[in-house]
């Protein structure tokens, strides 16, 4: 089959590889119909995530048709049309039973790596480095899905891929980011980044009762997309002091909650931001937490900082004194996708939300390398790329 393989920093290629096969009883094989490229994939593309190997198949936002099931699969049947969550969860361990799916104890065969680096290993992820399990991803013609009954959501016939594909990641991620804000009616939520995750978070924050949502980015087209949902926007290139600006916009109090939907590769032209780049280059610090710093600085006293943006290693100059001084709450982590898929599908079917608005580009699998380039380098116009596979 054809699959999109990671070949090194800034290099991905379509390769012919063997078809996946059932390796464990609860596996299923899925013929992929649509697969999206995620901001998280860019962290791999940019070489920010350790333990990648040349030839690894990427992709974790996937849907398709079940073509084969292992003997241990009880619910899923050949012919079912499913969305596959990006995290791989066993469905049986303590964390899975508590619906903390991204904390699954059992799915990661390389858990020992994360055990040593983080103290504990979370769930494995599709197509996301060997530390996260080394599972082949879904930007390919076929994908093997472990623990298939847990890692699937069956989609009713008659609803197109584009409306449900993002149940695999960014819609639940935006939803959990908003839920983690503990929004009360009338709240103001500030969101750093206007990428796909942010776009979902904007809509979900309003759904959760926020009165105002303020989005920060420096790509006008992305900010416009957020404004379409009713968000106020700030282009940070045109703003000298973001904390002051947000204070002004919120009557001096600061936003009730702040979402960092940017993660470890924040841009910035401030002195710390350029220092971060240098330090990351020489290995002194691994992440560039510019958005996180601002979110902490801007948040109101007793407010919540919700962090869906991904971090991998060590952060430099995080204003922890500000966080302590204001008594902030932090909520973060990989999304418990399986927990949110069904309720969010219900919202989609009820016409309450249609995440397909975020798609700006549809490409064939063969053109995936071009998709990566555009999503990485032409961020203004290219907001979300969906690969059409079968």
């Amino acid at each position, binding site marked *: 089959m054809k699959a999109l393989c990671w070949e090194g920093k800034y290099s991905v290629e379509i390769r012919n*590889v063997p078809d996946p096969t059932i*390796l464990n009883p609860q596996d299923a094989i899925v013929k992929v119909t649509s697969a999206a490229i995620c901001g998280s994939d860019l962290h791999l593309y940019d070489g920010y995530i350790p333990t990648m190997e*040349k030839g690894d198949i990427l992709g974790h936002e996937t849907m398709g048709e079940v073509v084969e099931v292992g003997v241990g699969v009880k619910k899923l049947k050949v012919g079912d049309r499913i969305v596959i969550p990006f995290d791989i969860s066993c*469905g049986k361990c303590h964390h899975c039973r508590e619906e903390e799916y991204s904390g699954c104890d059992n799915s990661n065969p390389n858990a020992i790596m994360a*055990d040593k680096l983080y103290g504990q290993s979370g769930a494995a992820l599709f197509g996301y480095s060997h530390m996260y399990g080394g599972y082949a991803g879904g930007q390919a013609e076929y994908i093997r899905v472990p623990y298939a009954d847990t890692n699937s959501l069956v989609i009713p016939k008659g609803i197109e891929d584009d409306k449900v594909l993002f149940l695999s990641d960014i819609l639940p991620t935006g939803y959990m980011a908003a839920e983690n804000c503990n929004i009360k009616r009338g709240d103001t939520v500030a969101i750093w980044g206007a990428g796909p995750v942010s776009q979902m978070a904007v809509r979900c924050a309003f759904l959760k009762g926020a009165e105002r949502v303020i989005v920060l980015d420096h790509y006008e087209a992305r900010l416009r997309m957020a404004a379409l949902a009713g968000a106020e926007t700030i282009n940070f290139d045109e703003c000298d002091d973001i904390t002051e600006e947000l204070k002004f916009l919120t009557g001096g109090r600061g936003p009730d909650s702040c979402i960092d939907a940017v993660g470890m590769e924040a841009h910035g032209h401030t002195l710390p931001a350029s220092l971060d780049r240098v330090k990351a280059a020489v290995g002194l610090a691994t992440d560039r937490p510019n958005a996180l710093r601002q979110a902490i600085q801007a948040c109101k006293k007793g407010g919540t900082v919700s962090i869906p943006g991904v971090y991998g290693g060590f952060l430099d100059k995080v204003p922890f004194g500000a966080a302590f001084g204001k008594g902030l709450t932090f909520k973060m982590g990989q999304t418990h996708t399986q927990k949110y898929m069904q309720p969010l599908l219900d919202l989609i079917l009820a016409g309450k939300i249609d995440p397909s608005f975020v798609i700006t580009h549809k490409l064939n699998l063969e053109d995936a390398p071009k998709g990566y380039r555009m999503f990485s380098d032409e961020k203004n116009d290219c907001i979300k790329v969906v690969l059409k596979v079968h």
Partner: protein
Amino acid sequence: MNNQYRNLNQQNAVHAKNKRPLPYGRTYHSDDVSRFAVTIGKPIEEVFNFWRNFQNLSFFMKDLKEVEVLSPTLTRWVMELKNGVKATWDAEVTAERKNEMISWKSLPGSEVETDGSVWFSPAPQGKGCVVSLVMNYSAPGGKVTEFITKLTGEDGDTLMQVNLRRLKAFLETGEIPTTEGQPNGREVIPELKH
């Protein structure tokens, strides 16, 4: 494990196996060199029985090819590394309390010297069974440990941690997670190459 530790272990081997995993709030005696614990979401009886049927151990212990049960207390262990290097040793059960603990020791003169205890105790909040393993191992000439390290990049202690995780996964889900045999772009298929 260096020699200094090995001697310490031998002195402590006897009382190490009489030590219970201590009640919450206390830790093991600090001279037990290799200690691991894992919580398995299954009843104690089930976990104990699985372990006590020693031939089951090769299901989840990496590189352990076979455990042959010679008598209720005597077992023969065959370890085979990927490069074909083999090690065999016999071990006997030296103490056992049903659903609570098992201790073992390799017979004198074995290629691999090992002794230790495994304890089974209830986890809080109905989370199942805590398996606590306290063990010493060494191979004269360093044969086994050396090869393990060379091949897997894992030292013996890491390997045991991996093994306990695999035990947990196997008992909780009925399978051990793997990616061995999945496709990747490292193996080029010549006839399809473009």
